[in-house]
Structures are given as structure tokens and as C-alpha cells.
């Protein structure tokens, strides 16, 4: 199957099939069939504003004189009253507003699983492109490792496959720098941030994007089966070693910190951000769908 055929069929190309989740194509097709008149049942139930308010955005692009080809309903009658001339306002097309997709590939992602982390990031980026969303895909750690801009989106997986080729978790996490860099590099107002969020210097509230989607790749410490004794833990980013008794007190402290981190994201979610958690090996279909819905809201 050529890239073109793959794009037409909506299936990721074989080379990229290992990188993009196989259910992504079906999700894109289903999301593409979605119309305001026939919203998904879940959207109806939740009275999603996306399906109540279709049309252009409110972002003003231009004011120009009325032409015969224009819809007379778009005439600005207040301006006509002041100037006795017919004007129409042009707005940016809402659906053409892109998204910055940031994929954390710092060394700590090795704990979650580098291959799975890249697959999540690649799948999200490919789905947005396949839905025609302009994307700016960035892989970052302490700095931006690689950037791929797709102004018109696209169903081809080749650019995404080549983007992630050779990238391995390395360096320390600096989400603030990555987000600031993405904001400066594009005028997209939506952000999809895929990370484990092990960065104390960053807070979800500090994002400069208007619409934020946080996908947290989280592997609990208990998954490593630390046992019930002293544990020697090496930080994959700093190389620092920590030896501590893994007892009930340590477990409680870990749970408390984890709850604090989770609460910060849930607070952001209450303010309109999207927050989803993925654990290694968990099914991701539900998260992908809810992420797309959040992006289109």
C-alpha cells in the first residue's frame, strides 16, 4: 500500500503501523462521520456545546465591503447605519485552528516505556492530522528535540514515523521551556501535552495556550515491585540515587504526593482543560476519543 492509498483508506502505513495504534484509523473514521445533527449519544447526553454551536469562530480576521457573492445575512447593519455603506466581517475559520502536540521524551519516560510513550504521541498526532487539523508536533526533554509542522494536516504516517525514528528518552524534563517554545513557534491556541509530568517547576495553570489537553503517562512505583525493605532508586534523569525504606510511611508519603499532583490536573480540568491518565498496557481507545472530543469542543 502506497502512502496515497493508505491516506485514502484511512489506514496507517505498514511502516508506521507499529508506531500508531491500530484502533486510531477506526476512531478517525468514526469521528469524521460525526455531525452536529447526529452527535454521539454521549455528546447528546452531556449537551456538549460543540454540537449546539456550529459555525465560525469569533476570532475577527477582517472587515471588508459587501460583495454580491456574500451572504446578505452577514451584512453589518450597524456599520451601514453609520457609513451608509455595506460591510461584512470575516472571521478565521474555527476548524482550521491547529494544535501543538508536545511529546515528552525525557529520560523519565523510560520508566513508563519509551516505545509506548512514542506510540501514544504518534497516534494523537496522526489522528489530528488525519482529521485535517494543522499540527505542530514537537518532541522535547530539556529542550526541543525535534519539530514537525503540518499546516494542512494529512493522513500520511510517514512524516510521523520519520519524526519519531531514532528518538529515545534522554535528558531532564523541562515542560515550561517546551511549552513556551511551542507557543512562540506557532499561533495555535490548542495544546496537547503528552508527558509523565515529573517536573516540579511546571504547573498546569501556567500554560499560555487557550485550550489545554494533558495526557499523563503514569506508571506507579508499586508496579516495580519494590518489596518491603530498603530500596535503592536511581533517578533516570539526574542519575541521583536514593535509598529509603519502602515501608508503610514511605508508601503513604508517595500516595500523598501523587494525590497532590493529580489534584493539580483535576483543578485544571475543572477550568476547562482536558486531563487523561494512561498506564502502561491500558486500552487507549477511550482516551483518544475523549481527547478528540475535547479538542473539538
Amino acid at each position, binding site marked *: 500500500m502506497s502512502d496515497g492509498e493508505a491516506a485514502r483508506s484511512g489506514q496507517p502505513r505498514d511502516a508506521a503501523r507499529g508506531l500508531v495504534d491500530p484502533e486510531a484509523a477506526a476512531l478517525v473514521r468514526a469521528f469524521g462521520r460525526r455531525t452536529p445533527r447526529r452527535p454521539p449519544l454521549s455528546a447528546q447526553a452531556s449537551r456538549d456545546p460543540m454540537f449546539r454551536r456550529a459555525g465560525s469562530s469569533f476570532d475577527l480576521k477582517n472587515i471588508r465591503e459587501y460583495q454580491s457573492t456574500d451572504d446578505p445575512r452577514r451584512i453589518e447593519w450597524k456599520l451601514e447605519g453609520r457609513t451608509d455603506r455595506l460591510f461584512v466581517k470575516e472571521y478565521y475559520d474555527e476548524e482550521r485552528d491547529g494544535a501543538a502536540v508536545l511529546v515528552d521524551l525525557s529520560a523519565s519516560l523510560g520508566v513508563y516505556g519509551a516505545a509506548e510513550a512514542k506510540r501514544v504521541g504518534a497516534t494523537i498526532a496522526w489522528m489530528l492530522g488525519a482529521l485535517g487539523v494543522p499540527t505542530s508536533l514537537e518532541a522535547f526533554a530539556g529542550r526541543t528535540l525535534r519539530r514537525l509542522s503540518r499546516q494542512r494536516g494529512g493522513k500520511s504516517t510517514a512524516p510521523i514515523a520519520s519524526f519519531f525514528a531514532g528518538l529515545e528518552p534522554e535528558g531532564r524534563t523541562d515542560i515550561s521551556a517546551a511549552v513556551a517554545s511551542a507557543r512562540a513557534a506557532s499561533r495555535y491556541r490548542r495544546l496537547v501535552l503528552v508527558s*509523565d509530568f*515529573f517536573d516540579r517547576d511546571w504547573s498546569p495553570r501556567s500554560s499560555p495556550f487557550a485550550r489545554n489537553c494533558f495526557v499523563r503517562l503514569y506508571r506507579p512505583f508499586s508496579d516495580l515491585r519494590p518489596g518491603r525493605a530498603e530500596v535503592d532508586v536511581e533517578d*533516570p534523569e539526574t542519575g541521583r540515587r536514593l535509598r529509603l525504606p519502602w515501608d508503610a510511611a514511605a508508601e503513604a508519603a508517595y500516595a500523598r504526593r501523587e494525590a497532590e499532583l493529580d489534584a493539580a490536573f483535576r483543578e485544571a480540568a475543572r477550568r476547562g482543560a482536558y486531563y487523561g491518565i494512561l498506564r502502561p498496557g491500558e486500552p487507549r481507545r477511550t482516551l483518544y476519543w475523549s481527547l478528540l472530543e475535547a479538542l473539538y469542543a
Partner: protein
Amino acid sequence: MPSALATFLLLLAPVAAMLFLNLRLSRRLSYPHELLEEERRRGPAAFLFRALRAYWDLVLDAALALAVALALAGGGAPRDGAEPRGRPALVVDCSRSMLAGRPGSRPLDLAMRRLAEDESLRKAEPFALAFDPRTARTRLVPLRRLLSGVEGGGAAARLEGELAFLAVDYGELAALRRRGFGRITLLTDALPFRTEGFEAVELGFPDPASGESEFAAYPSSARHDRASGSWLVALVEAGRRGDLSVKAWRAPSGPFERLAPSRYGVEEGPAGRILRFSSPGLYLVSLPGPYGEAGADFALELASPATAASAEGPFSSRVLAAFPYLAASEKPELALVDEGGKGAGAAARAGGPRLVSTRLAPEDGRLVLSPALAGGRLIAAGAEPEAPGFAPAPASGGRARARRFVLGPAALANEDLPLAYDGAILAGAEPPFLDSTRPGEGRIEAAMGAYLLRSGDSLRPLAPPPSEYFAPARDGVLRLPPPPPPRLLWSAVLGLLSAAKLLAWRKSTGKRLLARG
């Protein structure tokens, strides 16, 4: 014993091995530290984990090894030559020799006077080292309770009334060490050995030769005189010889009754008087001490020479027929057996008859019998006092239960050979009295100044050894062991360390020490 350092290093070897294995095999986890930073702990676990954090268990193991090494090396025990720690103890020797001498100057009197007057001995815990007739063993009797309410010279009289003055086992002093006493002082007359580990205050043996005592006596032998058909008891006497009296045991259960002078005779011998009895029996020879000195009473069992015997084999049958005092019996006291016969096995059992076995060899060996056994004659034959496989002789009797002769042609041709069998048979006979007992061998009864050992139906005379009547020669050393190391201290240390380890384990794992189910 290896030093504490060597023991510690030895015990530390497994700890070091565990440390090495821990370092080699420990699993290092990779995880961001954001959620794992150490919590500020509170309570006892805080110190433990901050101080010993990484290898607390191995540190505690090393501490346990150190404690065990110090305990094994006798840590806390006094050094050589140092005064042992613990309360001092004062022991008064209550053997028979403490009663010898003139009243008031006997070693027992001197000891009690010293006990009452010596200020340095006041702090010491007093004991009496005495023979317990009920258990037939030496024991330490606390004196404070025994002498409560007694003043002045009554203490010695109280001891004489309460305790049996026989021979004592000085090794029992080691029990004081086990009980935690430090310095031990023994008040005694004279010891037949040198002492180490305790102090002996020798108050002097009242010797008739030096004028400190007027008299001493002891039966040196008691035997049947075949020539006259009577029994002879030879006494060794020193100093003044007073009148002696003889009593005979009224069968079957006593007591002793005065024996008519016509039934025994007294002769003068080279070392003392010789008593001649016309009939066998249990006699009591009493020698009263002159001028109020303690007398000497000796109970003697003079046995009939007739011995019930059995013979198996042609040679042993001829031996049985050769000795007129051996009477053939179905329940023999003595079994004469030719080697290879079935009677040897029956005789070998404990409680069975004494055994004299004979093996006839085709050739002469290179051995000759002991002159003591052969009456001074030279007889070329082999002999073993205890044939292998036979029950050992009781310690108190000191007799050989079995004797084995190996006779070659020369021995058989020797006309003095019957002397050897006669000596072997007589050597196995019961002694006239015992001078020692084994603990638990029987119950000791006092009988008019003498002592009798009752064991089942048998009644055996018992007398202190000669060293209680005559000054003993000094030979050998009695060494008391040093005080044991402070076991309680080390036990507490080991217990605390073990508890700390358990506590740390519980704190680190969160598990209960005693799991239910």
C-alpha cells in the same frame, strides 16, 4: 580459647559475606524521585533509618557478632590474678579431721572463733562444707540460718549436732562460683593438695606427734586368719592408747550391743593393737579419746570366708575343688569359668556373680603375674583385672568384678599357681568397710558414732578415709574455675539487639511480628 578479636572476625565473616552479596545482588530501581523523596520520619524509627539507613540489618548483625565474640571470650570476667567480682564467701570445712584435737583447740573451734572475731570475714557469706548423709553427697550448708541465735562457743556444738562429720568433696566449692560468689575462703585444718582459685586458711592438723592431739587411730587391715580360724583387725595408732570397746551388730536390724570380752581378744602389734574375733559379723570398734578428745568409732564387716561358687569347665572345676572355702552353689557369688563356656555371659551381667575366667594357652607368653596377686611368687601367666565386656566394679568397693587368667604350660606346671587364684578370689571379696560413696548410692545412717550405708537390704560400714585421722601428705592441686562471665549482661545485650532487629524489621515492612493465621 581464641581472643575476642579473632572470634569477632570469625563471626563477622558471614556478615561481610551478606554485605557483599547485598551489594552484588541488590536490585536498583529506576524511577523519578519527584514522588519518592524521603519523608521526615518521627519517633524511634527516625534515628534508626537516618543513622543506619542503608544497611541497618547488617550493622545490627555486626553488633550481635561483637556481643557474641565478647561473651565467648569471657568479656566482663576478671583477668588472671585479679580479684573475682561477686560477694565473698567463707566456707568452714566440716570433715572429720576438724574434730580432732583437744576441745577448744580443735580446728572446728578455731574456725568458728575466727568466723566470729575476724572483721575481714564478716562481710562474707558463711557456708559449711559438709557431707549430707541423706543424699550421700557433699553440700554447702548456709551457716547464717543454722547458727542463728547461737552465741560464743555454742556454734561448734551446733554444727556437731546438725552435721555429719565425714569426708567431704572440696570440688563442691565450685558451686559457689556458679552461684556468683567471688572471693572464696576455706577455713580448714590441712589440705592434701595445693589450692588455686580460692584461699585456704589452714588452721593446723592436730598431730599426736607434735603434741597437738593425744591420739589417732585407724583400722589398717581386717582379714580372716586361716591358721587360727579367727578374724584379725589391725589398728594403726598414734599417741595415747585408751581403752577400746567392741560392740556387735544384733542381727538383723541392730543396734550395736556390747560384745563380751571373751568373744574377742586384743593383742599388741607393731603399729597398734590387733583385735582378734572368733566369728564373722558386723562389729563396732570404739576408741574413746583421752581428755575429752573426740573418739574414733569404726564399724567393720568381717565376712565369712566361705563363698558360694560355681565352676564351668574342667579346669575351673578343679580350682573349685582345690579351695575348701569355696562351696558349690546354684546361686554363686563367684563364678569360675573356663573361657569359651556359656557361663561367662551370665556372669558378665551387672549384679551377677564375680568372675574368674581361665584360658589355657598352648604356649607360654611373656608375662608374669603381679607379685601382689601371687603372694610374692613368680608365676608366668597373663592376667587382666577387668576382662572386656564385664560390668565395672562399683567405685566404693574398688574391687575387680572379673579377672582373667591366661595360663601356658609353665604356669600350669608351677605349684604356686593356686596362690594366684587365692589372691584373685580374696581381692574380689567385699572390704570390711567403705571409705567413700557415690552420690545416690544409698542412705547413710549414724550408729553410735559410726556410719552405715544402707542400700536396699544391704548394710555396709562406712568410715572416713585415713586422711581424716592422720595428717595427709600434700600432693596435687585443687583448682577452682574462674567465675563465669556475666551471662545476664550479655544475654540482655543480645536480647536488646535482637529486639532492635525485630523492631526495625517491623518498622520497615509494616508487618506484624506474630502473623495471624
